[in-house]
């Protein structure tokens, strides 16, 4: 197992290098720069700004300078938030996105798993239909509809919760629910599907014939196998919850990294674009590795190789 993980970790390096190179050049070839503004900046000033950020150097030199920098773990200064570095911005905003993602995952698993198990256990009964319908709605209703609806109901009509901001513990409820609900729906459907497949297998029939209780059959025998599809979904889903929180962060005005990730491209904040891309790419690759390890752990038929 150690060799497997070490080899996979080493593979991350060339993957990231390709991503960095592609992003670096792509973002530079987009028209407009970080200092493009409605009111033209005097040329003397423009020259100084470019020199300050090293943009007056040839592109290939800037590229190698940048590679040298990130090898030392320095993602450079941000162009937009002029007195902060990209490292500082990530350190400040990533925890917020992680917390939001954490709550959302908790809600997604807390709702999705039990509902999926119920639906499978009560296959083709009204309970199954209700759970499946809820799942279908969750998948169909986009977050930018659900978010404002929840804000309208709980924030404006009932005035129980803030509709925007990230101040107190209650401010986690609406964004967490909105983001979590969509993933809960996917998890519910995957759990249901996985469980149904396992419940129809011979070893379950054997367990039933031996007189095991239904609860024991589901939790002891079926769940482990039934969760396999959910686990392979979770890896990209966790990375997706972190990157995909842009919409939620905008709707609820949450100072997370998802918004910076998207806005940095509009602002041509070259260093912040690269910083966030590297972070998210790394996260995605790493989560896939975790999923692979989990798969082997849950499924005795797989081996590390």
């Amino acid at each position, binding site marked *: 197992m150690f060799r497997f993980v070490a080899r996979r970790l080493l593979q991350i390096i060339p993957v990231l290098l390709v991503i960095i190179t592609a992003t670096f050049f792509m973002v530079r070839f*987009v*028209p*407009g*720069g970080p200092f*493009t*503004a*409605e*009111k*033209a*900046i*005097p040329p*003397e*000033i423009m*020259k*100084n*700004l470019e020199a*300050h950020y090293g943009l007056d150097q040839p592109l290939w030199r800037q590229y190698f300078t940048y590679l040298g920098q990130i090898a030392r773990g320095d993602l450079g200064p941000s162009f*937009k*938030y*002029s*007195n*902060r570095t990209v490292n500082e*911005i990530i350190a*400040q*905003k990533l925890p*917020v996105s992680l917390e939001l993602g954490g709550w959302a995952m908790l809600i997604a698993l807390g709702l999705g798993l*039990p509902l999926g198990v*119920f639906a499978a256990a009560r296959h083709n009964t009204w*309970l199954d239909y209700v759970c499946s319908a809820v799942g279908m709605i969750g998948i169909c209703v986009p977050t930018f509809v659900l978010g*404002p609806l929840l*804000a*309208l109901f709980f*924030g*404006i009509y*009932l*005035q*129980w*919760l*803030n*509709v*925007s*901001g990230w*101040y107190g*513990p*209650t401010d986690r*409820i609406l964004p967490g629910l909105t983001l979590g609900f969509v993933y809960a729906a996917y998890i519910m459907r995957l759990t249901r599907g996985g469980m149904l497949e396992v419940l129809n297998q011979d070893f379950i029939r054997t367990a039933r014939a031996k007189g095991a209780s*239904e*609860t024991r059959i*589901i939790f002891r025998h079926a769940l482990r196998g039934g969760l396999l599809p959910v686990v392979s979904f979770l890896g990209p889903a966790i990375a997706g919850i972190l990157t995909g929180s842009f919409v939620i962060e*905008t*709707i*609820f*005005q*949450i*100072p*997370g990294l998802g*918004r*910076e990730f998207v806005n940095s491209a*509009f602002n*041509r904040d070259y260093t912040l674009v690269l910083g966030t891309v590297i972070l998210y790419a790394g996260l995605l690759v790493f989560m896939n590795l975790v999923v692979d390890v989990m798969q082997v752990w849950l499924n005795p038929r797989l081996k590390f190789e």
Partner: protein
Amino acid sequence: MLRLCHRFCLLSSVICFLLFAACTRHETPVEAGNRTQTLHQNIGAEPQDLDPAMMQTNSHFQVLMALYEGLTGYDPQTLAPVPGVAERWEISDDGLIYTFQLRANARWSNGDPVTAQDFVFSAQRTLTASLGSPYPFYFFVVRGAEDFLGGKLTDFSQVGIRAVDDRTLRIELHQPAPYLPFLLGGFAWYPVHRATVEKTGPWSHPYTGWTKPGLIVTNGPFLLAEWRAGEGMVVKKNPRYWDAARVRLREIDFHVIENIDTEERAFRSGQLHLTEYVPGNKLKGYHDHEPAVLKAVPFFMTYFYGFNTTRPPFNDGRVRQAFSLALDRAQLVASQPFRGLRPATAYVPPDVDGYTYDGPGQLRFDPVEARRLLAASGYPDGKGFPAIDITFATNNRHQEIAEVMQQMWRQNLGVRLNLANKEGRVFQEERVHMAYDLARAGWVGDYLDAHAFLSVYVANGGQNNTGFANPEYDRLVRESLNEPDRAKRHAIYRQTEAILLRELPILPLFHDGSPHLVSPALHGYYPNLLNYHPYQGMWLESH
């Protein structure tokens, strides 16, 4: 299994109960603010920095206005310059020398007196190219300022801004600028505290971090207490401000909600007293049901399109006129209701400092004449007219307006144009490099004088971007300021604007409005032409 189901249901009901018990109807931030004199205002995007020399968007002026004070300030209703750090000033007969007397009791937030040297230092800093300030042109009326920035002058004492003594500042201009007292109230002229700036690095370097809470020293009615990245800034009343007795607000929470729908929800749920915008689809609702909170007033802005006059088809003046005459501006404005828009009959917004353009060539709707002109220029009934793009930066409202224009030109001229919406910076880049035919533009005057608008279209003007160059126009713009008499100056403006409307390098559509949602509890807030709202006279009181 059934037992399990019951247990799950029980558990979830307990969780739900706990969750909602925690969040019964609470006092909203606005209600609490009314009690504690805490204003909640949204300013849209987060400022990059609170260094007045480095400000990049006008909407952040509000934060700086709370933190700093210039030589002059503004009357909250008329925006007329009023004494600020300077208690009075004298102007020489030729209008070239201004002598300011500073208040003895003007203090920095650390207790140091605000001196004339502070203003000289701040001007030198902004005019130093290595700082990279985006707004040095607010100083260009000062003798030698432009040369110093460009490196033609290296000794700052040669520039016309000098501290005679601690409390006397003399500013010498290279040409009269009757609007100077107004300009001095703006952010670019705000003083910065030298010792503080130098604490974190050389003063001629940008973004050394001296504006962080705990470090920053300012001289305005409020102090920076907190700056939470992505969440906003909190400023608290400055007890050392010379006019602190008049400041009634104790705190201002500047929110940085960028999404206008989120902003509107925050206002409705009692999180904001004051919004930056109002979503277009909510205007009617507020207008019909809650007219008291919707403030949509005229803004000192002209919304227009620029023609690329350097290439066909718009290098032909007749085509430009035809396109202008074919637009029914009243109808266009009617398609954007409740915003306080006024259809344009000229380029400069009407009634600014008593000037309204009433000369020849006023913009009007005349489809017959429009067709005649287009035919005369070789496109009878629009035949053979190239399918050019109406270019604008991605934005719903720009799109709506461009659609109306597209339709009017199709009906009235028979030309079929395409709509091209471009991402913001791509659009700017194309405009600057003149890679367009017809592109959206807008101009907000920096000071309440027609000159702020007319000076844009001088031949080498950095914001011209149309290829328009007319020596007579340039001469009139230059000479207008030499005329000390207001009525005579306005007559020169009229001549200048007549040239612009004759040549028509731009297509003025309307003068914009600025809609905001304002809590009825906020007093001392007056909607005005430039959206400048000094905080000194504001207070909160619910009824």
